[in-house]
């Protein structure tokens, strides 16, 4: 008995070892079987010398939604951008120029005509035509469109009316919380909503909001002049012949979205290995000519590890697209590598401290302006971004044509001026605790911001802001929270007072300076409750300007409109605009001819070459 017992211990251990080996083998099998599949039905067998390849670091794995309008992560967009070619492309000055099609804006500015180049094809040889164009955009108004912004496409003729009808129906869907049920409403289920919305969609389609008189022409009609039309309707197209049979609501989960079978851009999709890498290969039929590099690999790798791999040459590029290099890593490590080239460009995005304007003390304009003077924003750029960034004073980036700094208060770092403004507003430190107060109300606020792994520079700026504001008598309590919690706190629900005082977040920005969606009375992203009640009559003027900015294609006119709008934000400061960081791009010198301007390195990926 005594002897047998211990052998069982051994038996257990041996069994465990066996299981480990089997599992390890299975794990290996599952992960490596995919590479064995011949790409595109074996059209491109591996040459003995091996294809040329460039490996780009991606710090976060894509969600495998490779569809130009459905991607919700910038990591997916970087990849989808190489597979799907946009109709229009940017010039170096961020104007639009023809790519797949020429465009023409009609006399009355109510329609845009796109004329496609002849002979365009998808990588499987199917012609790329105006039918793909209409298919791409019209489907975005489907009642079950699974992508984010239907409201933008609703600028199409009759689109807003259709959305309103959808919303009327949607408001009758049984509420999630039984307490929200109202008497006298004839509630429907979600399924019934879809059933009733579909005929409305069909009716709308019959009104031809996008006309395709022939294979090479698409005419887009609008109800009203829509200035960002070229940005919104000049994007990448999806292949009609691939998506046609698939229900629209399943597009985001469809196999063809995970593994796009055809491409119009410089590269074709080969495979994605979960959380590890995406492999792309040159598209022979790319309209600008076959790319020089045979393969592009986007490899998922931790930011810290990527630097080491850049150093030993197993990764060719970091800081491409959405994967941003930390300025500190760049200054302290990467800059010393002799085998890399680097350059920087302003980022399409900015960071801000948003302010709850419904808070009685924060509603006082002088308090907000005092905060802008009290925070050394240039100091934040110098210390945390190592100078790779620019201080902001309006919601417009210096690289946008709408940016105009004349007449804008730059709010230089001036703690004395801040104290003066606070004193003028009647705040005094009566009890000698270093915090100012008025009528018994102390200038003490909480500052919410995303902690964890999100944006380390922004996190580091929070304690600095606390120090700067503390120095002028405003006490800040830091409240780092998980990202989604911060956004949930900030998100505006009409009629409710937001549950925060101050917060830090960032916006990414499009080339077009339109501000729709950020400040309106029903916008979920109107974090600060920017409204007539909180800032006075200037709000109505701001709303008017945002609307006017959409209603002309004339850039000079729009610049004047956004200049006035910028001044309103600059005076009232619903946000203390902080900074816009620069994107630093680093390439191994063996990769040459990489585009260095603001359009990004991937803009001319087909022209890259490898040094011998």
């Amino acid at each position, binding site marked *: 008995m005594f002897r047998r017992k211990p052998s069982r211990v051994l038996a257990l251990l041996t069994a465990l070892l066996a299981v480990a080996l089997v599992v390890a083998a299975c794990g290996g099998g599952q992960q490596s079987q995919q590479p064995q599949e011949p790409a595109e039905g074996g059209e491109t067998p*591996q040459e003995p010398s091996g294809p040329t390849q460039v490996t780009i670091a991606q710090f976060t794995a894509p969600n495998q939604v490779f569809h130009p309008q459905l991607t919700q992560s910038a990591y997916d967009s970087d990849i989808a951008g190489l597979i799907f070619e946009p109709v229009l492309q940017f010039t170096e000055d961020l104007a639009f120029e023809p790519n797949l099609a020429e465009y023409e804006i009609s006399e009355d500015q109510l329609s845009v005509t796109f004329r496609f180049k002849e002979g365009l094809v998808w990588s499987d040889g199917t012609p790329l035509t105006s039918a793909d164009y209409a298919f791409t955009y019209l489907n975005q108004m489907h009642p079950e469109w699974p992508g984010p*912004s239907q409201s933008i496409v609703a600028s199409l003729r009759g689109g807003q009316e259709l959305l309103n009808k959808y919303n009327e129906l949607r408001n009758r869907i049984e509420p999630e919380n039984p307490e929200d049920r109202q008497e006298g409403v004839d509630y429907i289920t979600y399924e019934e909503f879809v059933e009733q919305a579909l005929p409305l969609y069909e009716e709308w389609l019959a009104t031809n909001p996008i006309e395709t008189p022939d294979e090479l022409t698409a005419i887009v009609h609008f109800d009203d002049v829509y200035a960002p039309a070229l940005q919104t309707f000049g994007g990448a197209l999806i292949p009609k012949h691939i998506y046609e049979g698939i229900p629209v609501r399943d597009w985001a989960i469809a196999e063809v979205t995970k593994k796009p079978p055809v491409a119009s851009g410089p590269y074709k999709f080969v495979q994605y290995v979960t959380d590890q890498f995406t492999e792309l290969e040159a598209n022979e039929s790319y309209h600008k000519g076959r790319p020089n590099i045979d393969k592009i690999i986007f490899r998922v*790798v931790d930011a810290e590890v990527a630097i080491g791999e850049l150093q030993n040459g197993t990764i060719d590029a970091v800081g491409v697209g959405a994967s941003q290099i930390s300025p500190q890593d760049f200054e302290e490590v990467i800059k010393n590598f002799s085998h890399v080239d680097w350059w920087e460009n302003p980022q399409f995005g900015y960071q801000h401290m948003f302010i709850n304007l419904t808070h009685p003390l924060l509603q006082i304009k002088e308090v907000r302006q005092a905060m802008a003077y009290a925070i050394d924003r240039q100091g934040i750029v110098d210390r945390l971004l190592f100078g790779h960034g620019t201080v902001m004073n309006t919601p417009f980036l210096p690289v946008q044509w709408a940016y105009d700094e004349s007449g804008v208060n730059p709010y230089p770092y001036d703690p004395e001026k801040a104290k003066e403004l606070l004193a003028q507003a009647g705040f005094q430190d009566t009890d000698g605790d270093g915090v100012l107060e008025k009528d018994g109300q102390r200038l003490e606020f909480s500052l919410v911001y995303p902690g964890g792994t999100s944006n380390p520079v922004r996190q580091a700026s929070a304690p600095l802001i606390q120090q700067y504001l503390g120095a002028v008598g405003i006490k800040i309590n830091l409240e780092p929270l998980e990202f*989604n919690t911060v956004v949930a706190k900030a998100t505006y629900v009409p009629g409710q007072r937001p549950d925060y005082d101050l917060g830090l977040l960032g916006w990414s920005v499009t080339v077009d300076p339109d501000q729709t969606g950020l400040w309106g009375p029903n916008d979920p992203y109107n974090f600060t409750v920017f409204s007539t009640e909180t800032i006075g009559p200037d709000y109505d003027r701001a709303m008017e300007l945002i609307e006017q900015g959409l209603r002309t294609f004339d850039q000079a006119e729009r610049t004047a409109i956004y200049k006035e709008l910028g001044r309103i934000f600059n005076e009232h400061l619903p946000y203390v605009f902080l900074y816009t960081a620069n994107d630093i791009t680093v390439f191994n010198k063996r990769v040459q001819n990489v585009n260095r301007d603001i359009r990004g390195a991937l803009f001319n990926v087909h022209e890259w070459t490898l040094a011998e």
Partner: protein
Amino acid sequence: MATYVVRRVLQSIPILLGITVLTFLLAKAMPGDPFTMLLNPGITEADLERLRGIAGLKAPPHVQYWRWLVSLLQGNLGMSISFNQPVATIIADRLAPTVAIGIGSLLIGLILGVLFGVISAVRKYTLIDTVFTVGALAGISAPTFFMGLLAIKYLSIGLGWFPSSNLVTPGLNAPFPYNYLDVAHHLVLPTMVLGVASIGSMARYVRSGMLDVLSQDYVRTARAKGLSERVIVYRHALRNALIPVVTLLGLSLPGVVGGAIITEQVFSIPGLGRMSYLAVLRRDYPLIMATTVLFAVMTVLGNLLADLGYAWVDPRIRYD
């Protein structure tokens, strides 16, 4: 014995149900939902409502839970909201690497831990015992991300012996035996780092178990019979000291499946740990529920196995 197992399995059903209800309530109580974090000025309230409708979030909570439970019983884990894939596929993709690393590191911890623990116990209060104790403390205290980055710096980037991250070499379309070797090569560093981290606690566990056994009467008897110290330690004492380790093994089952968030992050390994963490951050309710069920089942199963294993190796314990 059989009745005991049946009873335990039946008992676990209400426990598992309770866990799912609690998880569901807690997940729903987190601020925000899967679409809060989209943060895109082009999105209106109507857009958010449409997306919630498609994701099935436009029904009362009890209806949502009931739908989830019914489809689970039909073997359908549902669709992940943030990954746009069936939950089963997402988990299946990540299960094998997670389990391989989990078991591999468990074995490293076990083998080296037992070895160091025995040596420490036999030579208690000597220099070597002190060295092992300090080493164990260091191993327990050193954060895995730090060990991971050190390993990458010296063994991967410095010496170039092992790849620094991922599971396969991109673009290497190797034939049969080499693709497995490629994966094994990639698995070495993460398994080692995770294994080293567990040696310390295992060694301390074995050491105290050994000391306990070595002071027992039957060991004294064995010594009195004139048996050699080697036979006493390895034949009589060690085998008994290992009995609690069997229990420990059963309890590590959920850990093997649960994955190691930090190690997976540092080595960019597609594992369940990182995935379940992302699921929570993204408020991906179906994925949160599925991982919870998986971990709960493993915990219940691990406990049961530990109890059974204990009875199997230790005849003093009987379940009826």
